[in-house]
């Protein structure tokens, strides 16, 4: 996902996540990529931030930038972290690339007092439209890879994610769906509308 808000240079979901994080919090960003979100959180929220990233080149890049990042696989290495070691465990645009999304979500809720998850909504009308009329796996500006070449192996819709939250006993503190322009959809819109018009979603969760 690379929708950026004009003027800030930061990704829309990153800015939303930053809004949800309390200043000075201890934060673990899983799948932190090149560290943009961590850097943003350090700058605007003064967090004590750590990252986990699967690619070693990404990790080395982050460390050279002064971020605390370790190489690790969300599907395997989260077990090493103690319960509630962090105030927030973040998973930004990574859930769909994990092999065991349910397990990863459970780990997030265990490690952090709060979990924040952002993901592309596969229920968005444009994706439904493409699949319906082209009969082929949809490609969009934000999800440009071919089906055989994508790191994303577990797509879900907003509705799917909400039922997964129920299954792992997660309480949804704040759900936000963003339209194609990166703007939050109006609060109070029925779920089926959010699922249809939200191109991506950001969820603030905690344990029940």
């Amino acid at each position, binding site marked *: 996902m690379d929708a950026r808000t004009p003027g800030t240079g930061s990704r829309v979901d990153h800015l939303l996540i930053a809004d949800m994080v309390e200043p000075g919090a201890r934060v673990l960003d899983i799948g932190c990529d090149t560290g943009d979100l961590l850097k943003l959180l350090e700058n605007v929220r003064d967090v004590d931030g750590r990252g986990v990233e699967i690619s070693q080149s990404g*990790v*080395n890049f982050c460390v*050279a930038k*002064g971020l605390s990042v*370790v190489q690790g696989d969300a599907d395997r290495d989260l077990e090493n972290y103690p319960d509630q070691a962090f105030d927030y465990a973040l998973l930004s645009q990574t859930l769909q690339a994990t092999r065991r999304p349910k397990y990863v979500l459970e780990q997030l809720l265990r490690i952090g007092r709060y979990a924040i998850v952002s993901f592309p909504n596969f229920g968005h009308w444009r994706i439904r439209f493409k699949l319906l009329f082209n009969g082929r796996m949809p490609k969009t500006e934000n999800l440009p890879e071919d089906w055989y070449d994508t790191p994303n192996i577990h797509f879900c819709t907003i509705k799917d994610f909400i039922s997964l939250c129920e299954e792992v006993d997660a309480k949804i503190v704040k759900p936000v769906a963003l339209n194609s322009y990166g703007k939050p959809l109006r609060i109070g819109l029925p779920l089926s509308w959010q699922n249809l018009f939200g191109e991506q979603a950001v969820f603030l969760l905690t344990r029940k």
Partner: protein
Amino acid sequence: MPVSAIEEFGENEPIQLDCGHDLAPFSIAYQTYGKLNEARTNAVLICHALTGDQYAADTHPLTGKPGWWSRMIGPGKPIDTDHYFVICTNVLGGCMGSTGPASLNPETGRPYGLDFPVITIADMVRAQERLIERLGIPSLFAVVGGSMGGMQVLEWAASYPEKVFSAIPIATAARHSSQNIAFHEVGRQAVMADPDWRGGRYLEAGVRPRKGLAVARMAAHITYLSDEALHRKFGRNLQDRDCVTFGFDADFQVESYLRHQGMSFVDRFDANSYLYITRAMDYFDLAQDHGGLAQAFRKARSRFCVVSFTSDWLYPTRESREIVQALNAVAANVSFVEIESDKGHDAFLLHEPELFDAVSGFLSAAAERRGL
């Protein structure tokens, strides 16, 4: 070796060693680079590897060569002496001015030889801590080192958590593996098999076990490299000849290189120090000492940057990963960088831009946190 500063600790200030012995008096030789700031918060302790010494960033008085980490330490370099006050000590048991088996035993007036008590990595760190205290530095901004130096870094973070703001253990492990102990034993046996070793009393006899120590160094040196690096450097090239001699001269360049490494080492290193320091490394096992590796870091407050190299088979990445897992288990602040290199264990001493970027980026961020 009067070129270094030497701090002396007298009869009344003994150091308690892990073997149960009290050592006094003792001396620690050290070099410093850069300036200590007024708040005394910018000191970086550099810990040297087995065959290193305090001459990390200046000309070595015996070999005339640049310091072993002159790529890393200096003005504008990753450990920037324009900002940090760098201290590098010769370890306890060493032979470049710190008290070791070649020092005079005050009880007998003769060199200690094998009467020197067996020391551990923790003992080396205790001695360093005494020096840091003597220099009036309440806590170190960073402790940095590779290989055996990395063991000291881990020991510092575990034993003096409140005195280590940040820690960079490079190409190291929290315990010495069976394979590592095996290689060290080969080296020690080579030294002790040399007739000139004389039960460790060679200094009084005016001889030195040069051949034994050279063989020890040759064997160890192979473990510091990688097959790829050796192949790249030497292949099966012959040394100053067109065909093999069907004898045992150094026909191959790699043989001649190893012989040179061995012989130049004996001029700057004491054989008994080699025995004691390899033993200290063999005994190192942070998990056993603290009832579990995560337990060892329970009180750690430092920011860690663990570094390994892909082709290091002496301290492979999986051993660094164990350290990282233990640190994660106590929610410590840790970074972990594995650097792609074909240069083997020695990569930490060589030109590795990714290593320099990681160290410099990590230290800059830590400096910001400490308000330097």
